[in-house]
């Protein structure tokens, strides 16, 4: 006598018939039988991979290192020396004093021939352009589109001055770097080309040709530089550029359109690191070994309140960019490490050979007494 009830006796056949059509279709995918390549980590494969990596990486590392070494770089820190002795006790007060003379003369010695173009950078240390409050404090629409001149969202606290919107608004623009450098060699002026230092895409699409600064650096606290006003009006009139005049206080200022404000454009490409260099201009003549470059600089920018360094950098450029040994050293390290691993594995392989897939390693194949 069975335990089970057999209620639905007849239904089995009908279900079977009904399900017959449901029989799954056969394909290699549905059966999980797609042809597959199943690599395993054989000693030969692994050692060759490591050898290959080291063979590729060491030469690339050497090349990178050479490229970096070929770059000639002159770095001069001037933030300390450009404070007059009398003011060294209170640097911040000096730098914030608008009437104090900020002019400072420094000399640079060219220790090696520098081929043009020579990039002139200013380098700031301990300056957090990537601070969240700072990096977001801009309005791209306003920069691009003259119609949107009053859209200042995201620019707080530098969005309005005297009740009017600021163009360009925001902390980044407000804190524009304003040290200036005039280079001369053997009392002859060295021209620094300040055109083309920003990205072309920024000039063409990010900063409008018909957007003009408005109400800029007009608030209660002056941050950084005013926008460029040093270019004679005539040039722009000749070039059929529109000019804008604005009277505030005296004398008369006329501002250039934003797409030509290359210092601003460079500055507004915010740096990801607290130490960064920004292109100031290019010297388009070679500098010879032994040349002495004298620089007259205006030490305007306040880095003293947060003890940030200011450096002036002259650098040539190679295929990897500026002087940076990191990639070369890292490549040599990784290449060397891989070579070491390849050697180590080879030695282990010969000293202690181990058969792959040896069934004796499967414990269930072992003698029952063995464990």
């Amino acid at each position, binding site marked *: 006598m069975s335990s089970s009830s057999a209620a639905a006796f007849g239904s089995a*056949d009908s279900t079977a018939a009904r399900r017959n059509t449901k*029989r799954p279709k056969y394909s290699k995918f549905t059966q999980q039988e797609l042809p*597959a390549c199943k690599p395993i980590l054989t000693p030969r494969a692994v050692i060759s991979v490591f050898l290959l990596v080291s063979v590729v990486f060491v030469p690339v590392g050497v090349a990178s290192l050479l490229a970096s070494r070929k770059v000639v770089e002159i770095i001069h820190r001037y933030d300390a020396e450009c404070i007059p002795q009398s003011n060294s006790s209170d640097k911040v007060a000096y730098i914030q004093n608008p009437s104090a003379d900020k002019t400072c003369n420094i000399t640079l010695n060219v220790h090696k021939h520098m081929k043009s173009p020579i990039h002139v950078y200013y380098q700031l240390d301990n300056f957090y352009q990537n*601070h969240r409050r700072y990096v977001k404090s801009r309005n791209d629409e306003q920069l691009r589109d003259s119609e949107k001149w009053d859209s200042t969202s995201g620019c707080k606290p530098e969005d309005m001055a005297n009740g009017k919107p600021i163009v360009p608004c925001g902390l980044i623009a407000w804190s524009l770097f304003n040290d200036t450098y005039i280079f001369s060699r053997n009392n002859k002026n060295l021209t620094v080309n300040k055109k083309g230092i920003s990205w072309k895409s920024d000039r063409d699409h990010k900063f409008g040709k018909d957007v003009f600064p408005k109400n800029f650096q007009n608030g209660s606290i002056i941050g950084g530089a005013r926008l460029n006003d040093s270019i004679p009006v005539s040039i722009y009139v000749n070039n059929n550029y529109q000019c804008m005049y604005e009277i505030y206080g005296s004398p008369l200022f006329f501002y250039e359109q934003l797409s030509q404000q290359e210092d601003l454009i460079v500055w507004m490409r915010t740096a990801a690191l607290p130490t960064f260099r920004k292109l100031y201009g290019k010297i388009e003549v070679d500098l010879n070994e032994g040349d002495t470059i004298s620089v007259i600089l205006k030490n305007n920018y306040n880095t003293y309140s947060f003890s940030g360094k200011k450096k002036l950098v002259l650098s040539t450029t190679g295929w990897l960019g500026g002087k*940076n040994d990191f990639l070369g050293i890292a490549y040599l390290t990784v290449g060397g490490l891989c070579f070491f*691993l390849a050697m180590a594995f080879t030695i282990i392989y010969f000293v202690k050979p181990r058969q*792959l*897939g040896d069934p004796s390693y499967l414990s269930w194949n072992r003698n029952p007494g063995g464990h």
Partner: protein
Amino acid sequence: MSRGIPEPKLTAMDAMIDKLTGAIFVFQIVVVMVLGIAGNVWKDTEAKKQWYVLYPDKGPWYELLIIPLRFELLCSIMIPISIKVSLDLVKGLYAKFIDWDHRMVDLETSTPSNATNTAISEDLGQVEYILTDKTGTLTENKMIFRRCCISGIFYGNENGDALKDVELLHAVSSGSPDVVQFLTIMAICNTVIPTQSKTGDILYKAQSQDEDALVQAAAHLHMVFFNKSGNILEVKFNSSVLQYEVLETLEFTSDRKRMSLVLRDCQNGKILLLSKGADEAILPYARTGQQTRNFVEAVEQYAHLGLRTLCLAWRELREDEYREWSLMFREANSTLVDREVNGILVNDILYSNSYELNFSVYYLSQWRVAEVCQRIEHNLEVLGVTAIEDRLQDGVPETIETLRKAGINFWMLTGDKQNTAIQIALSCNFISPEPKGQLLSIDGKTEDEVRRSLERVLLTMRITTSEPKDVAFVIDGWALDFALNHYRKAFTELAILSRTAICCRVTPSQKAQLVQILKSCDYRTLAIGDGGNDVRMIQQADIGVGISGREGLQAARAADYSIGKFRFLKRLILVHGRYSYNRTAFLSQYSFYKSLLICFIQIFFSFISGVSGTSLFNSVSLMAYNVFYTSVPVLVSVLDKDLSEETVIQHPQILFYCQAGRLLNPSTFAGWFGRSLFHAVVVFLISIHAYAYDKSEMEEVSMVALSGCIWLQAFVVAMETNSFTILQHLAIWGNLAGFYAINWIFSALPASGMYTIMFRLCRQPSYWISIFLMTAAGMSPILAIKYFRYTYRPSKINTLQQAERLGGPILSLGTIEPQPRPLIEKDVSTLSITQPKNRNPVYEPLLSDSPNATRRSSGTPFDFFQSQSRSSLPNYSRNCKDN
């Protein structure tokens, strides 16, 4: 008949993933708090000096919260939301693979396997206990009358089919009175209802398959039971129609183990008592003077063949004897009125399964009836013994052996009687015969006896647990009832100690209770059954598997998986379950890895951005990182196979890695955590050093770091993939190409923040040099560690991979070769089955049709893991999860 909505099942993996998510959440909170405090300190000390940030002197009251909240936003990507979507997708695919599997289609009925529950495939790979029904699950539930012994003459012994035995046919045609009487009992001593179909064929509606088999067999032998109207039974023998009037039905109960009919022969008015039942319920009541030795022998012989035996007997009642008895019987039955009322209620709960109900709930009231029945069922003229075969399904012994090698413990829960259950258990490798196996029985008529028996078995079990011996226990529903209600603790301990158990005569609710006990010990349970009486057990278990078989689809509908045959369970667990587990283990940990990777970079960046909570990556990149760049390659890991299906089936022990959760646990997770930390360090340091000074432009550094992450994750996926199909290559390398395509598109839009960035970067040699550096620096230590482990500390999976792919000698060594099993002769095998009625459970491979249905008799323990954990753990904490 579905009993409410079963609660949704959660796999062990899901639980583990939830646990890990919780841990990551705590980690996230800690990070947020530390960075939030650091950020506020930095703000109050440093940021005040950074005039260009222009912090107001006096901020709003909530100012202290701003920076922690910024970090909370920044770190919210630490917990991958995409994991839920990815898991749902791949789980759906796992289920589809089960549905599609051609090797799991029952060719007889063309029933494909079906995964109703798409969410729990991983659990299949972690099963530790399988609770199986017997009839219809292990067996085909196709009862066939095979042999009989009438008045000491054996029929059907030569050809194994009594219906074709010439001697029997001859005896029938010659009208031998014993044979005719035997056939009459076969035909009418039952509760079968015959119905006539339109075509004139007679169909039988039988409560039990055995009765059906007997009636069919009788009909075959020209004793056709063709009509039942009211109490009148009509039987056609040869050409004459015989009528009988049923006077009383003495129902079958598990205790009585027999059923009888009292009926009046309408031909001559005689009152007859016809009985059929288990040998121990019939033979002792034989007429004094009748030799029953023949029948005892017959029963033993048949039982050894695994046949279900029934003894048939009858006697003539005197009119007055019947009158007197029938009064008592009616009175006794009337006390059962309560029973009936209860019966309907409980019936509803327990599913209709006649004697199982009778047994557990109405035992006491039944006892009274049984006593009355007893008064008339004696002095019987035993006619003979029938032997019915319930064939094992194809491949059941191999399936059970393979799964037991995989470390899965089997419990058989059956409503059937003990002897039959033991026979079936023996024939399908469920338990081993002496001397390897030992069967301990828990029984007893009273509570006290049960308790003593339970304690004795427990003691034996504790002693033998260190021996490589297959100890199993047998318990029947009556004892189980006591054990579950009064000695639950002892029984639980027993349940943990015993790898095998046979529970006979259990009710559906007891089945569910047993599942509950194992679940409470934190075992993953799989219940498999085919009938309505298994539904509760199936719903209760972690995984319910229904056999869509002869007993209807009730179980299959309630189950999470339905398969056509028991043997598909092997493939369901070892192939689908294992792959699902492995794939999910990789996918979930990888999801955490990639989220942590990007989040660590953000955290590192915050240290160089004045702890202000600046995001290095723009929001588009962050979104695309989770949605496209990292989720596509990992989705194809659903096609990954660490070992081929054949290897897994040959080495089922490998399932241990899944059962013990070796591939997803806090320590493997720590590995992935470490990997993401290491990769974040590599990507971050290289990005900020290679893109320093004049190149340190925010958008560029951000894209360099993001590219580094994408490259690393592509190589991580590639390294963790064991088998590359074309789809994997497409997804991994195509995704990498897709990353550049998407970013070029964004770089072409002037309105987007990263306008021209990607074009600029791709033109710079330093970009590519940095990317290759990150890839090499990130991957070479991982490759080195992996290679070292793979070669010098290989896991079993690695060893098998190596063997499989190098074609080593292992494939021939490890296969389950059918070894000829020496026949144990009957007289040699003195068996110590501690059960009152000693019946030698000698194995005879007659029942199974498959050629591989042999078993090893050599003394090798089933597997290493089990025996190791047994011997190393003195207590019953045989929990692989410790390893």
